Every structure is written in structure tokens, then in C-alpha cells.
């Protein structure tokens, strides 16, 4: 690819050099200056309708919309001159004419760009004395609700549906001060990616019905994570309130999901808040499972394993770290590890290359295969009569208790104790995906980190810690105090992951060696 010509310009007295064709707004971001804007979004085509990003360009007679003006060599741009600030103040005043003063009951409050910029450079009072325009709230279908009074007509949602989802549902109906976002006759926002319009909306006009009235933005705690709902591995932010997951939002990553996540991933978080969890280590004594101390339970688990061959039924939702330690337990006994994957329908996002809700509805299918686990349609078929069966967070759905009891020794290492595994000799509670740190490998071989979003219930511990302790009792000399140390061992022992570490992965991830680049059909 030919090098793009670089253009140098001055923004607010700062010299920046950006590729030719960049907008002034993007160049200003490089210089560390955020020019206020509403209609502009880096994931959408430029519209230039909101007029909020007006800046003064030297030698130009009129103020220029910085989102729609390309940089030029030697250009001198001023963002905070009196003329530019006055113009933006005027634009804000016009936008607020019909905007209700209902921030105290608005879901967007606290993460609203209209609030932010009005606070930053708007007027403190309104000169508008007439009655405000009123339109009733409308259900847009799917997860989306429309509050037309709050709409500032930036058309981000319209452009997303037209140019990214390629499913024209929304339009600007009416004109002038009567304009509002409308749906085409007989259509609903039921596209599997339509929920993104809620994130794109800079104000509280498009709201998620699922999140409606659940929490104020400032009450939420956020943790950078990876969506676990399919093998795509979209980068997300898990937002919790009082240690309960309240919603999932996309986290931008140019290499994976750009700015978007699908509705399935967005709304599939309730399992993270399950209350019927396995909370205490349990060991079978006198015919029934009894709650017991971790130390005793780990030693009991090691006693069950002894030198017997193990069969592991793992969950593809486990992190690379947990699966790696499980594979060490398998290898020392000459056993096997298998996993099964729930299947759904594929739903691509047309406007973005290689982005779809994948058929395999589990986070770490590729990672499990890489670490030596075999995908199976018939779980437990490889189970031998004298094996120790380790149920590693598989929910045993569709598996009969009798099939499990075929194994003389059953051990559960999981977030729940499935009914079919009541015959277990030992049950060790582990943290679920939202409660621990780790990595997943997505279908393109990209290893991505996720962070802990909430605490685990009861005495449950992170999976890598439980398995590391178990290996320690079994005689493994490596002690692990952090998930990064487990990952370092994976990188040491697997040539595909050579040279990778938590530090190098950062929060955007890196592909394993030999991974298929994005865009190559599988």
C-alpha cells in the first residue's frame, strides 16, 4: 500500500501532521483537542448537519464545519476564538429550543453530549418564551424506544441503519421545526444489530428498553471486557450497579467490532447475575455433599484424581488460563478433554467486514481447540468406565444423571452444581466470566483480555486459582499468583502464542501466530 501523503497544520497553536484527506475534527483529536460535535461519528458517513463543530479557519470567510472540512497544508485552525464559540453557543441555543428540561428523569443524563457541551460552552439561560413542540414517545420495535422531544436530528441512527446495517428503517419525517425521526411504513427496528442506534444517539432520544429507568449513568462501574456470547469476540464494557451487571456496551476496536455489538450479545448478560450458584467448596462425606473449607476440598479433589485417567467435559466459556491448567491435569493422567458448543443462527452486520453474530455461541471455542480440547457433538462418549469425570462448568443440559454416574468418580469445577452431577465426590466453586480476569481467543485467533466486573459469590474463587492450587497439591512446582503468570506459561509452552503477554496484548488484543487475517473466508 502506498504511503499516504502527510499534511501539517496548526490547531489551536499545536502542530500536527495527519494523512491527507483527514477531517479537521479528527486532526484535532490527534492534537488532543475535542471539537464539540453531534452528527459526526467515526463509524458513520459524514453528514455535516448539526453545525456544532464550527471552527475558525484562517483566511476562510465563513466558519467551517470541522467534520466535513479536510485538512490542508499550512492551515491554521482556531477552535476557541470568540467568533467560533459564539457560533456554537448559537447552535446550542437553537438545539435547546425544543429540547425538554427533563434531564432528571432522562436515562441519558450523565452521558449526554447535549448536557456536556451545554455545560461546556452553552448559554446559562433560555431566551425562548413560547411553548415547546411536543410529540409522544414511540416504540421503535426491538430494544429501542424513541422520545422525539429530546431528538436533535443528528441523523446518526438513520445513517447507521442505511449505511452500516443496510436495512433502511429510519428516516427524517417532516421538515423544519416539525422534523422528527420516523420509521418506514410497516418496518420495525428488529435488525439484529439495531440496538447500536441507542449508543450512537448523542442525547436521550433513543433509549434501550432493557436499560430503561434501571440506573443513572454515574452509578455504574465499568470494566473492559470481551462479549462472551459468540466466537466473534467483540470488545465490550460491562457496566455494573451494586455488583449486578446492568448493561453491556460496545468498546471500540478497529480490528474486531469497530464501534458496534449485536443485540444478542448486548442483552445476553442475565446469566452473569445468576443467584443459584455453587458458592462453597463441597466434599462427599457420609453419602452426601457437605460444605467444607477450601484447603480440605482441594486435597480431597487431589485424592480423587490420584493417578487415575481423567475425562474433562469443559465449557468453551472458560478462559485460556483455566483451559490451559485443565489441559495440564489431563496430560499428566493421559486423559482427554472435550467440549460442546451451543449453536445459533449467524447474523452479519453488512457494512463492516468480517463482523457477525457467529453460529458458535461461546467465547473461547478457538482457544479450547488450540489448547488441546476436542469439539464434540456427543459429550461423554469418550468417557471410559474407570475415568474420573471432571465437569468443568458444563451445565450438563440434556445429559442424563445416569450417563454421568457411569464414571466411578465425578468432580465438578463450576459456577453451578448441575442436577445431573449430584453424584459428585467433590464440587469446587469458581467465578464466572464476569467475576475473574482472563483471555479469550476469538475465531480469527485474536487473543483478548477481559477484566473482572463484579465480585464472585460466597467462597467461589477464580478458575485459574482453583486449578493452580489443585495442580500444586498434585505436585506441580509452578505457583501462580496472577492470571498473567498463567498466561505467561501458555505463551512459553505454545509456539502459536510465542512472545505474547498481558502487557503486550493491552486491552485490544493481538492475533496468535498463523492466525487467519481478517477478511479471509474460513
Amino acid at each position, binding site marked *: 500500500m502506498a504511503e499516504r501523503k502527510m499534511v501539517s497544520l496548526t490547531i489551536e497553536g499545536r502542530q500536527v501532521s495527519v494523512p491527507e484527506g483527514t477531517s479537521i475534527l479528527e486532526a484535532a483529536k490527534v492534537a488532543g483537542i475535542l471539537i464539540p460535535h453531534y452528527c459526526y461519528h467515526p463509524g458513520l458517513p459524514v453528514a455535516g448537519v448539526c453545525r456544532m463543530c464550527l471552527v475558525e479557519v484562517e483566511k476562510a470567510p465563513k*466558519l467551517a464545519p470541522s467534520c466535513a472540512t479536510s485538512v490542508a497544508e499550512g492551515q491554521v485552525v482556531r477552535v476557541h476564538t470568540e467568533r467560533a464559540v459564539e*457560533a456554537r453557543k*448559537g*447552535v446550542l441555543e*437553537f438545539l435547546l429550543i425544543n429540547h425538554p428540561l427533563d434531564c432528571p428523569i432522562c436515562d441519558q443524563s450523565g452521558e449526554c453530549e447535549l448536557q456536556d457541551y451545554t455545560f461546556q460552552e452553552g448559554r446559562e439561560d433560555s431566551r425562548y418564551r413560547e411553548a415547546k413542540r411536543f410529540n409522544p414517545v414511540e416504540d421503535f420495535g426491538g430494544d429501542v424506544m424513541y422520545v422525539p422531544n429530546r431528538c436533535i436530528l443528528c441523523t446518526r441512527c438513520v445513517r447507521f441503519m442505511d449505511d452500516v446495517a443496510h436495512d433502511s428503517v429510519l428516516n427524517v419525517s417532516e421538515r423544519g421545526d416539525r422534523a422528527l425521526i420516523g420509521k418506514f411504513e410497516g418496518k420495525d427496528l428488529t435488525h439484529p444489530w439495531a440496538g447500536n442506534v441507542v449508543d450512537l444517539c448523542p442525547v436521550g432520544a433513543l433509549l434501550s428498553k432493557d436499560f430503561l429507568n434501571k440506573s443513572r449513568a454515574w452509578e455504574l462501574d465499568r470494566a473492559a471486557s470481551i462479549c462472551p456470547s459468540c466466537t466473534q469476540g467483540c470488545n465490550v464494557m460491562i457496566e455494573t450497579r451494586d455488583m449486578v451487571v446492568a448493561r453491556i456496551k460496545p468498546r471500540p476496536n478497529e480490528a474486531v467490532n469497530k464501534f458496534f455489538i449485536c443485540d444478542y450479545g448486548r442483552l445476553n448478560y442475565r446469566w452473569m447475575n445468576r443467584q443459584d450458584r455453587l458458592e462453597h467448596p463441597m466434599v462427599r462425606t457420609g453419602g452426601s455433599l457437605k460444605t467444607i473449607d477450601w484447603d480440605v476440598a482441594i486435597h480431597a479433589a487431589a485424592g480423587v484424581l490420584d493417578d487415575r485417567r481423567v475425562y474433562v467435559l469443559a465449557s468453551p466459556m472458560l478462559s485460556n488460563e483455566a483451559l490451559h491448567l485443565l489441559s495440564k491435569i489431563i496430560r499428566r493422567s493421559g486423559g482427554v478433554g472435550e467440549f460442546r458448543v451451543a449453536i445459533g443462527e449467524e447474523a452479519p452486520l453488512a457494512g463492516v467486514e468480517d463482523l457477525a453474530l457467529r453460529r458458535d455461541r461461546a467465547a473461547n471455542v478457538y482457544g479450547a481447540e488450540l489448547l488441546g480440547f476436542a469439539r464434540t457433538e456427543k459429550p461423554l462418549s469418550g468417557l471410559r468406565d474407570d475415568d474420573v469425570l471432571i465437569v468443568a462448568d458444563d451445565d450438563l443440559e440434556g445429559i442424563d444423571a445416569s450417563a454421568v454416574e457411569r464414571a466411578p468418580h465425578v468432580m465438578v469445577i463450576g459456577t453451578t452444581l448441575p442436577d445431573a452431577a449430584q453424584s459428585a465426590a467433590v464440587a469446587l466453586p469458581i467465578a464466572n466470566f464476569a467475576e475473574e480476569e482472563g483471555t479469550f481467543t476469538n475465531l480469527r485467533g485474536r487473543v483478548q483480555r477481559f477484566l473482572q466486573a463484579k465480585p464472585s459469590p460466597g467462597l467461589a474463587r477464580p478458575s485459574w486459582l482453583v486449578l493452580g492450587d489443585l495442580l500444586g497439591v498434585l505436585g506441580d512446582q509452578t505457583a501462580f499468583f496472577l492470571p498473567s503468570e498463567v498466561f505467561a506459561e501458555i505463551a512459553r509452552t505454545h509456539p502459536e502464542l510465542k512472545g505474547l503477554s498481558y502487557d503486550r496484548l493491552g486491552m485490544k488484543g493481538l492475533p496468535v501466530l498463523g492466525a487467519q487475517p481478517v477478511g479471509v473466508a474460513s
Partner: protein
Amino acid sequence: MEDLDTLIEIGENMTGTTICVLSDSCAVPVISGIKKFRPEFESLIHGRRVHPVLEAVA
């Protein structure tokens, strides 16, 4: 009276800062009207029907 200044200010915000050029053309006559004929506007506001100059002549 301050409405005249408000009109000029809003009119100025409407020239060159909107995507639709019709905004300029609706603001310009208002601005130039007020700027060139301010005494007429003011006398109308004060309830007088006739221009102060004409009043003096009559």
C-alpha cells in the same frame, strides 16, 4: 426594546452557521431592517403610529 437586540443576535447566529442557506436569507432582511430603520421600530414599540421626523414636520 431588548427584543430588537435579541432579533439581531439570533439573526447573526443564523447567518453562515446553518447547513441550509435559506436561513441566511430570512435573517438578512430582519437584521438590515432593524439596523437601517431602528427609530421606526422603536416608535412603534412606544405606541406611536407616526415617524418622529414626520411628527416634527407636521
